[in-house]
């Protein structure tokens, strides 16, 4: 496991985090067991694993939406104690305010940061243009397709200028073609802004394509089974998906995940 490095280089530092919950009709469940993970600043990091492995829970803990029970999570701004604009989040079902137009949604984010008036208006337009939604500022979410709604959600989150971008299977609700386009666009945005991204997905190819580094998580109780560095410099080459090294990596990671999926099926708790 790579060292955390100096404080300034920290994106997200997770130390010995354990999370348990008790469902209504059963014994206590350990969702995450003693997770420690250091994500350097500006890294695009994927949390990959089978359903129920706790990757979304870990994301919500980083976001501060669920309180940390055991262990601690730190960012460059200090200990995580609750939600905050330096950790922006994008959800799978977009979470746009349906009663506001696209622009109004983005303006809302800017208003929380104290930006108002014509300055805010210009900045909102900037982000809307960045996600290629120019011309749809005045549309309501119900009038937009899934892909467009997700772009709007991303624009809104980017408008708070977060250091860290948390993404919870953001393309899961989109069809395969839209998903691929959005993946490419997301890479473009990330390269331009160089934020730290923590990206939850169960799609192996997506993780290998997008991320610099992947934490493959084990089935419940969730642990970091292995960390894979995926260093493809030529990611913006459309032929990357046929690159043999890329394909091998995908296969390798898939084998790791499949072992975990089988483990879940067999009901064995990972050692």
């Amino acid at each position: 496991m790579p060292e955390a490095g100096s404080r300034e280089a920290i994106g997200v530092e997770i130390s010995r985090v354990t999370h348990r919950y008790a469902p209504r009709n059963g014994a206590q469940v350990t969702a995450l067991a003693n997770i420690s993970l250091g994500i350097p600043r500006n890294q695009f990091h994927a949390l990959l694993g089978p359903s129920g492995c706790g990757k979304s829970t870990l994301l919500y803990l980083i976001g501060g939406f669920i309180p940390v029970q055991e262990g601690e999570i730190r960012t460059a701004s200090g200990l995580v104690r609750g939600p905050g604009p330096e950790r922006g989040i994008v959800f799978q079902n977009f979470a746009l305010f349906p009663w506001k137009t696209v622009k109004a949604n983005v303006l809302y984010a800017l208003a929380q940061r104290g930006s108002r008036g014509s300055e805010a208006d210009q900045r909102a337009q900037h982000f809307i243009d960045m996600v290629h939604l120019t011309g749809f500022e005045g549309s309501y979410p119900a009038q937009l397709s899934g892909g467009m709604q997700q772009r709007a959600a991303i624009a809104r989150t980017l408008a708070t200028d977060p250091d860290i971008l948390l993404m919870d299977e953001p393309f899961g609700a989109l069809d395969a073609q839209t998903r691929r386009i959005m993946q490419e666009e997301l890479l473009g945005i990330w390269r331009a802004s160089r934020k730290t991204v923590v990206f939850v997905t169960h799609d192996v190819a997506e993780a290998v394509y997008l991320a610099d580094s992947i934490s493959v998580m084990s089935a419940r109780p969730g642990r970091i089974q292995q960390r894979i560095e995926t260093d493809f410099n030529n990611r913006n080459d459309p032929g990357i998906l046929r690159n043999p090294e890329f394909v091998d990596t995908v296969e390798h990671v898939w084998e790791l995940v499949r072992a975990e999926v089988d483990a879940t099926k067999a009901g064995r708790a990972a050692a």
Partner: protein
Amino acid sequence: MSGAVLPAPVPAPNLQRLRQAAGSCVALGGLLVFWAVAGQREWIDPFLLPPLGEVLQRLLEDVQFGEFATNAGLTVYRTALGFLIACVLGIPLGIAVARSAALRWFCAPLISVGFPMPKIAFLPVFILWFGVYDTSKIVMVAFASAFTLVASAEAGMRGVDKVLVWSARGMGAGPVGLFFQVLIPAALPQIFTGLQIALPTALITAIASEMLMGGAGLGGAMLQAGRFADSVGVYAGIVETAAVGMLVVAAMARLRRGLLHWHPEFARR
């Protein structure tokens, strides 16, 4: 792909709707024709089903001489005031119940007990407490509408998708801003649905109260007509009441469209 919006609506559905409306008009017209003919030929005892012409004439007279305005006005006034009181008291209560576990523990059983009660049974109590004039009717209307309003306000608040709240908090929203700018708009569709259900209830209750207590108002006038065997008056009253009912429902639907124009239910697909 980014440029593509939703396809334009196919013309056929609109044509279909037109055909349906036409069909309904024909069916309704047929009914009225049957009524007119039955009255003329006296297929049915004219006391039970007075001729359409006489009913129409009475309707005209009611409008002309102000009877309709007076009665409808009174009924609507009592309904509206009672309903308003129920809104002002009930909706904040419902919101508070959704936010406070203690309040919820106390109020939820009371609401679920009170909901299925035929609240009109309490009318004699309100007469006892508030006399025989408007106050008792208004209180009765308020009491009858309140339960639905509290329940739907509570459900609306509880039903707000938590990712909306998390997004807002993630953007740095404070508790007050969160409440007014996120929770209330998100809960509004369901709260408004509650209003749309409660208002007809308020109208039914007002009319029933008027019938019991007599006096002016659509209910009182109709019952008086019934007691005096004035069946034409009864029919005219029903038509007038139906008209008021339709106006009320239509007005609420219009208001919903205005307030909730952003909601997916109105999206052109």
